[in-house]
């Protein structure tokens, strides 16, 4: 049996004081390969902290976090960075596309940093853009794209490295509802192909897409109404 994609063992994060602030209470969580998980909660509840820990952008101050069975606590920063670049695809609320690079160049950026051979990059980036339905706009600059198209480019960039986990932070936060709908459809389709998707949102309609819903309230992670141990 393969290791779960995400495994939190009593992982929590406390910002050192004074006074110490507990941003995420120690919690346990297992997310298996191919799941679609929504994490909901009001702003300030600890969603960002949870995202940072799961996305290897921040390390838990207690407990441990295993990504694909690799204990990330023992890793040096360079190895964490490498793991992050290869196993996690990020989708941000504000897209974070480089404004002076074309869509395909933005997607290629992910391949430059994760060590993909140069000759493969262009083809893979084009393929990723085709997968998100932007095969006809590969040379467009982000400024020439609509909000939905930009987020699709960002999703293509997240997927092009073939990560284990697609980590989406308010993916529809900057989009109108119709566009948001199509982006969510895209995430569904990606999930249907076997990708593990974790969406962090405060929007209940987005959360409703998840097969599993986690709630964060005041730094405490709970699932389906019951507190995790």
């Amino acid at each position: 049996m393969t290791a779960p994609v995400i495994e939190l063992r009593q992982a929590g994060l406390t910002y050192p004081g004074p006074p110490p602030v507990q941003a995420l209470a120690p919690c346990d969580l297992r997310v298996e390969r191919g799941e679609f998980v929504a994490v909901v909660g009001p702003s300030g509840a600890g969603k960002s902290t949870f995202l940072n820990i799961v996305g290897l952008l921040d390390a838990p101050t207690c407990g441990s976090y295993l990504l694909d069975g690799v204990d990330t606590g023992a890793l040096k920063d360079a190895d964490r960075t490498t793991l992050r670049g290869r196993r996690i695809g990020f989708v941000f609320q504000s897209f974070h596309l480089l404004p002076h690079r074309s869509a395909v160049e933005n997607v290629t950026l992910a391949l430059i940093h994760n060590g993909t051979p140069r000759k493969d990059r262009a083809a893979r980036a084009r393929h990723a853009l085709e997968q998100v339905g932007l095969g006809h706009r590969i040379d467009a600059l982000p400024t020439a794209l609509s909000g939905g198209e930009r987020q699709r480019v960002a999703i293509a960039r997240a997927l092009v490295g073939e990560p284990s986990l697609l980590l989406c932070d308010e993916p529809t936060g900057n989009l109108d509802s119709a566009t948001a709908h199509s982006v969510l459809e895209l995430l569904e389709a990606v999930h249907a192909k076997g990708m593990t998707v974790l969406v962090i949102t405060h929007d209940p309609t987005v959360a409703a897409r998840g097969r599993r819903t986690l709630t964060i309230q005041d730094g405490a992670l709970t699932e389906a109404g019951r507190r995790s141990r």
Partner: protein
Amino acid sequence: MTRRLRPRLPVRRPARRRAAATDRMPRNRLSVRDLLAEALAGVLQRPGRSVLTSLGTVLGVGAFVAVLGLTATASSQIDDRFNALTATEVTVEDVSHEQGSDAAVGFPADADRRVERLNGVRHAGAYWPVDLDPGQQVHSAPVGAARGGSRIQVVAAGSGVLRAARPTLAEGRVYDTWHDRTGQRVAVIGAGVATRLGITTLETQPAVFIGDEAFTVVGIVEDVERRADLLLSVVVPRSTAEEVWGAPRGTAKMLVATDLGAAAQVAAEAPLALDPAHPEWFRAVPPPDPRALRTEVGGDLDQLFLLLAAICLFIGTVGIANTTLVAVLERTGEIGLRRALGARGRHITAQFLTESGALGALGGLVGTSLGILTVVGVALARDWTPVIHPEVAASAPVIGLATGLAAGLYPAWRASRIQPVEALRR
């Protein structure tokens, strides 16, 4: 020797343990080619700003090249003039009066011919300023208003002196050996003297009066390349002067024009040729060593201008540092994104260092070109030969690169310290 290995072992172990974690997955690397491509894209995405940023380096490196090129060019020009005239000029002084009271008087009558027979001598002639009595003055008419002439120098000179001085004649001719030998009453005057004496043309065969002696003016000299004082003088043949005013009193000199490279040899031989019995009565002064002259000219001005160039470069460095720092703050989101995509802190450092280095190198290249153009332009305008040492042209872009790298150190370090968490929150 083998015992030394033992203390090392405990140090190595943690390194191995760390390696175990990375064995499964080699760390992300950024190839040099990718690094250059990313940095170039960063520079080119804001072309206007990049140009302005590298302006300081352009000016600094340009000034550096121009200063070194211009000084090299100018000093080589000084050398040229030196070669053409000074290096082919020997002066022989009559020092017989220093040797004792019984010494004979000055240059022998055939001194010019004796020296001109030497190999490598083109023209030679003895000359001296004539001591006129206070009552005797140079004027253009024997009586009347023009009589109140001014004090104009009269120079007695062998015909070789006039040829050695390389005159440009406004009118007429210089006197020759025949005039000199036969004591003709002729004079060659400078254009300035002619104006003062009211002589405008030689067609009327004007004369100048020195004391009460009349001399026919045979030539008006507009310019000379040697002995500029001749332009302010009335020059009369040597034998004529001796006839009228007597021999010189220890103030005679001889001007010798030589072939290029013969000056030192001529200077050694001339005293012997003049008087084999008493060569010590003559002191020949050869031209100074051109190499010594060159270094003297090179020194001071160079350093001042190089200091200015260094200041320009420093300003350029500060400019690049400032702009790169602003760019780092502006691109915080991009840095965070790259970190999220797997770029390590050192990759970010390398990227920004490369960008500032590229800006510096670009500025250096443009500056070098501008500097060389300046040198060539000035040389063209002055009709000089442009001289730029290859080391200068080659090192200038490297200086630009070093400037850019130095300027990028602090911003790049700041960039690598940006935490992706904070960068992505924007």
